[in-house]
């Protein structure tokens, strides 16, 4: 708070309205940010916070409304104008050239050259080093981006914006891909930046981080400005209620439960990734009836390959997978589905849904060839749409219209559709990967409850997630995956965030 200069409003967005076709993404939103402030922008998915920031960064133009930068009315028609005005944006998905070095990435587009247009990398490196020291953003300037961690890549993105003279930094969901330790470091960096007079706008739906780092918070719901609050004066629960529009419970109700017999058994599994490198190395794991086994780990430690191997989408190099005692190691996806495994895939738009199919067609993606949905190769559209109507009703998928294309549904409703389909398959093992990625609090609550319900029905649930909070909240046991192997399994009740975080980073806290 002490760094905020309340006399200077660096960003003032007034009555911003943005209409796409017949959807109003932003409806007369106000946003005022002072110099040196950390201002969080909180809202559910699709609430319009990214739209608002894209307007500020010149990617969209508002339908109505005015933007003042440092008190001056500005028409931000392109990102270049935004950059000239000292606005920088770090996107959720980094925009880096992987084979280039850190310095090369930072100076890209703003290269310092000698006479004759020769690159002056020495000067560039010096500039980058002095910048990174000024803000405590330590990076190895000569490392290649593909060789550094995601947390480091994020620093490169921030440095890139600072190098271009940014005074106002927009960070879009910056913690989504970070470990707990990296999140702490990022918060430290944000504090350093504001100390140096920079202003931060933080797009997020994580309440804990807002409480930790933000001074003010603007809440947006369904495109409308709900409130702007002093963060120190509100609780997380109050923030959540403002965001969702109703009371939300954070804790999952979970009864004590004895686990049953082993359902999935993995022994010495080895799987290669797309580049032909071993991503899963001799991994062993067991999942039991009536338990949720959480697999915690940092992105890229073999989680995706593990799931693809179990479900038959990726060849297995070595090891065995057994389901209910039956070997399914080299089975086809269809046979694996038939052995009572259902999967809520990591990437719902790539794997989970055929976006150009109707919701009804998507609901039978695994069962279209079975009665009553088809007979002798002829589809029974009546049965399919009847079945879909029931699922839409039971799982509250919106809009309630099974003939719509899946593409039209919001992310949360797409996920609900997949969960509806997979749970209705009545599996013995439910595999879920990142089931709440990109979902808002209301939908997350829903998904978590659905998972616990499956466990209570004595089914086995394998939950792979990059969100440590999610793993700790929902799981009965937690397995930590690091570089393709399980480095430890702990009881969720005794799990400690710091120790898990250390294990996830390869700190080997095995006992």
């Amino acid at each position, binding site marked *: 708070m002490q760094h905020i200069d309340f006399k200077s409003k660096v960003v003032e967005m007034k009555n911003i309205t943005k209409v796409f076709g017949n959807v109003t993404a932003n409806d007369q939103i106000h946003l005022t940010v002072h110099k040196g402030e950390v201002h969080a922008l909180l809202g559910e998915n699709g609430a319009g916070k990214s739209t608002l920031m894209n307007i500020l960064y010149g990617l969209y133009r508002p339908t109505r409304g005015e933007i003042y930068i440092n008190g001056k009315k500005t028409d931000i028609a392109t990102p270049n104008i935004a950059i000239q005005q000292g606005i920088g944006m770090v996107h959720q998905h980094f925009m880096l050239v992987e084979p280039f070095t850190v310095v090369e990435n930072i100076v890209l587009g703003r290269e310092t050259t000698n006479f004759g247009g020769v690159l002056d990398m020495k000067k560039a490196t010096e500039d980058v080093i002095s910048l990174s020291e000024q803000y405590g953003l330590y990076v190895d300037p000569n490392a290649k981006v593909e060789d550094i961690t995601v947390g480091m890549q994020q620093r490169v993105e921030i440095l890139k914006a600072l190098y271009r003279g940014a005074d106002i930094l927009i960070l879009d969901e910056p913690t989504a891909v970070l470990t707990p330790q990296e999140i702490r470091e990022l918060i430290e960096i944000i504090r350093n930046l504001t100390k140096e007079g920079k202003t931060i706008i933080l797009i997020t739906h994580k309440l804990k981080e807002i409480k930790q780092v933000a001074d003010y918070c603007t809440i947006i719901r369904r495109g409308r400005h709900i409130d702007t609050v002093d963060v120190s004066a509100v609780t997380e629960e109050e923030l959540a209620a403002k965001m969702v529009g109703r009371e939300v419970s954070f804790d999952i109700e979970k009864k004590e439960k004895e686990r049953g017999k082993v359902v999935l058994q993995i022994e010495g599994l080895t799987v290669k990734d797309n580049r032909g490198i071993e991503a899963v190395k001799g991994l062993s794991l067991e999942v039991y009836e009536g338990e949720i086994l959480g697999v915690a780990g940092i992105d890229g430690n073999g989680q995706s390959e593990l799931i693809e191997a179990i*479900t038959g989408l990726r060849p297995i190099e070595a090891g065995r997978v057994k389901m209910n005692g039956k070997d399914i190691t080299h089975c086809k996806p269809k046979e694996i589905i038939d052995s009572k495994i259902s999967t809520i895939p990591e990437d719902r738009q790539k794997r989970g849904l055929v976006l150009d*199919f109707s919701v009804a067609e998507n609901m039978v993606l695994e069962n279209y060839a079975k009665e009553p949905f088809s007979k002798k190769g002829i589809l029974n559209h009546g049965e399919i749409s009847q079945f879909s109507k029931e699922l839409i009703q039971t799982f509250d998928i919106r809009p309630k219209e099974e*003939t719509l294309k899946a593409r039209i549904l919001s992310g949360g409703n797409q996920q609900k559709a997949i969960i509806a389909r997979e749970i209705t398959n009545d599996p013995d093992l439910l595999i879920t990967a990142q089931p709440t990625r990109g979902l808002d609090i209301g939908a997350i609550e829903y998904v978590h409850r659905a998972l616990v319900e499956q466990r209570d029905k004595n089914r086995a649930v394998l939950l792979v997630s990059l969100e440590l909070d999610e793993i700790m909240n929902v799981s009965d046991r937690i397995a930590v995956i690091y570089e393709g192997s399980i480095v430890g399994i702990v009881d969720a009740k005794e799990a400690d965030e710091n120790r898990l975080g250390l294990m996830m980073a390869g700190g080997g806290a095995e006992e």
Partner: protein
Amino acid sequence: MNKRKRLLSHSFGITVISILMGFIVGAIILHRTGYNPFEAYGIMARGVFEKPKYLVQTIINSTPLILTGLSVVFAFRTGLFNIGAEGQFIIGALTAAWVGYFLKLPPVIHVVVVFFAAAIAAALWGGIAGFFKAKLGINEVITTIMLNWIAFYTQNYFVTLESFKKPDSEASYAIQNTASIVILEGWKKSQAGREWLKNHPIWRDVLKTDFNWGFLIAILIAILIWYILNKTTLGYELRAVGFNRFAAEYGGISVKKSIVASMMIAGALAGAAGALHVMGVSHKVSTLATMEGYGFDGIAVSLIAGSSPIGCILAGLLFSGLKYGGSKIQYTMNAPPEIISIIIGVIVLFIAMPRLIDAIPKAVAKIMPFVSRRRGEKHVG
């Protein structure tokens, strides 16, 4: 429901506007090159609609286009680009001519045998590209283009064979009459038929053409393809692979099998076009100097049809009408027949750019004040 209807009419609207734009651009070019566009379009329209036999000829010509269009559409719905309809057509035609000439079978049965032999041969031909794509990941565009030329020279080779080639010609022997699908072929040459036709000049005109059952068969096939795509599990699988092969794979559908199946059916459709053409119109195959273009025209037909099997019927008729009517502006007013290719090209171009059409009203609104201002300046100057 409402939304879906709107989307549907939207794409139909784009097609109509694109066709209109094709004619407008054609008119501008005709005008610039010194021909009266209204006269030219009048001649084209009369060239199609004035006499029943013109209309019949247009329908006859549309048959292979509808089927090659279907072939491209079918592969496209599985996410494959079948440039090979041309070669599959050749293989179908060659097989039809071969089986139609060498086999001696009773009428109707002979037609059925010729038809299926041609379709199967072309299905295998198309399946080669599917196999290479599924097994080795070789892009079907490349393999089908190569297969087109292999088909081309295969036909030219077969037409040199002594037992098949009609002496003193550049073509094979004609197929047996039992394999012909020309309507009333025997009767119209008989004494009684000639007598009757003498007194009925309209029918005489109509039957002078190669009026045959092909068009009807093509329509039935289009309906069948619509049914397969939308109402069967096979169609479900193929469309799922076409829209999102990753989701299809996840759902337990074999992507590789689907690719091969789709290319085989696409091949069979183009082969059927070749078979109907031989049985209904040409009755033989000839040494090819260049590609005949039925398969390539099928690509344009499929684009105008908007990947809809039923749309292929309309698009095939439009295409055939443009070509047949357009050929008449050459000898009546000496206008270049290439104008037809330009019209078709513009139609396809606009259909491929739906966003451009969406932008037209906005652009007009923007340009209008600008244009009037410019005019104003001119007056002042």
